[in-house]
Structure formats: structure tokens, C-alpha cells
């Protein structure tokens, strides 16, 4: 649990940025996108977009696939699923603690 738990904070941090969120919003439809396509319609340079994509890649939210001369990026839901599992765990621990509190004050 703890190793996975440690990975939560960077995932949250990676999502805490408007540009990266908008990239994920495009990618989460499941299609593969090139950097050029992701740069279209953005105020940012290709270089800036690439930096954001690499950050998302470093926490596993996106993966790049090399095709010929360019890299295509795709979305991976696994880190988000980890977050949900972590929140489930925290929730379950509180259910148990509060049930002990209940017995304690009502007993």
C-alpha cells in the first residue's frame, strides 16, 4: 500500500495545472495525439506543450508511442484509479474508527 500511496502526491501535482488538465481532457477520449495536434489552438509553444506532456508522462497519466519520426501520446487511467483506491482506504479506516467512537461514547 505504502509504495503506491507515495505515488499519489505527484499525480495530484501533475493535475494541478490548467494546461496539463486541458491536455488530459483532449487525450482522455482514448485517441492518440501528436505534439503538433496538441499544440494547435494553444497559445503555448510546441516546446512548452512537450514539457507538460513529459511531466504527465513521468507520473504515468500519459504514455508516448513512437511512430516513425514523431511521438504520439495516449492517456492511461491507472494512476487515477490508484487515487480512488487510496481514498477508499482512507474512507474505510474512518468508518472503522468512527464505529469504535460510537461504541465508546454510547457504551
Amino acid at each position, binding site marked *: 500500500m*505504502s509504495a503506491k*500511496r507515495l505515488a499519489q502526491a505527484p499525480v495530484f501535482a501533475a493535475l494541478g495545472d490548467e494546461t496539463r488538465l486541458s491536455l488530459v481532457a483532449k487525450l*482522455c477520449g482514448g485517441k492518440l495525439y501528436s505534439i503538433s495536434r496538441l499544440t494547435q489552438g494553444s497559445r503555448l509553444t510546441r516546446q512548452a506543450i512537450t514539457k507538460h506532456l513529459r511531466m504527465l508522462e513521468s507520473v504515468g497519466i500519459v504514455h508516448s508511442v513512437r511512430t516513425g519520426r514523431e511521438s504520439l501520446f495516449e492517456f492511461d*487511467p491507472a494512476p*487515477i484509479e490508484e487515487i480512488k483506491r487510496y481514498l477508499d482506504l482512507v474512507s474505510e479506516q474512518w468508518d472503522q474508527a468512527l464505529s469504535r467512537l460510537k461504541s*465508546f461514547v454510547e457504551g
Partner: protein
Amino acid sequence: MDPRVEKRIELKAPVSRVWRALTDHREFGEWFRVKLDGPFVPGQISRGQITYPGYEHVKWEAVIQKMEPERLFSFTWHPYSVDPKVDYSKETPTLVEFRLEKTATGTLLLLTESGFDKIPSDRRLEAFRMNDGGWTEQLKNIESYVAQGS
């Protein structure tokens, strides 16, 4: 949306009783299963050792935030930091708040744990809802999870 854990529980005990169970460090230790070194003082670090079977190696450490008598008790901590090899102090702590309300039959306790992230606001996440990808589903799961009661 901000990922948080929320619980509501009705307790058949007066608010004063519940307040004591939450804020007297010995009573807190009884039900939470932690042996605390000393009383809770706002602004100060509370230290102790978990007594829950199987987790006796885990240290308790929290910073007491607010103690508004019979109304609000809060602290920040690193939840379930059970691996002694991991330095949890580098992570942003979460905020735990216990709010008490008097009811006809006793006390309503509202617990919130928040700040798991610096995740974006509702407005920004609208972008995802407009998308048909699998992630939208995941976000719904997180949302329904965070919306659920005790």
C-alpha cells in the same frame, strides 16, 4: 471537485460527551487506538504510538489546529503513514475536521478529511465532463465516492 472524505454519524450521547471523547487525549487514544504523549494543544504537535493490533510500529504525529469547545476539533496529519521506511513529512498533510451538532437524540458528528492534493476546482474539471473518454467515468467514481456519507 476536490477529493475529500466526508462522514456523518449520529451518536446517542450528549455533545459534551462526544467533545470529551474527541479532545481528551486519553479518551481519543481509547477509540482511535493510539497512545498519546500528552494533551492536545492548538498549534502544537501531538505525538504518540498507534496501538491498533498489527500497526504498533506506526507513530502518530499530527498538528492540532482548532479546538472550539463542543463545535470544532481539527488537526493536520499524514494519514495512514504505515511504512517506517517512507518519509511522509515531505508530503502535504491532510486536514481532518470533526464538527459537532446537537440533535434531539444526541450528537451529529461530521467528519471531513481534505487536502489530498492541490487538485483543480470544479470549474476546471468541467473540461473532463464534456469529454466522452474513460476518464470521465473515473472522475464520476471519485465524485460519487466523495459524495457518499458514512
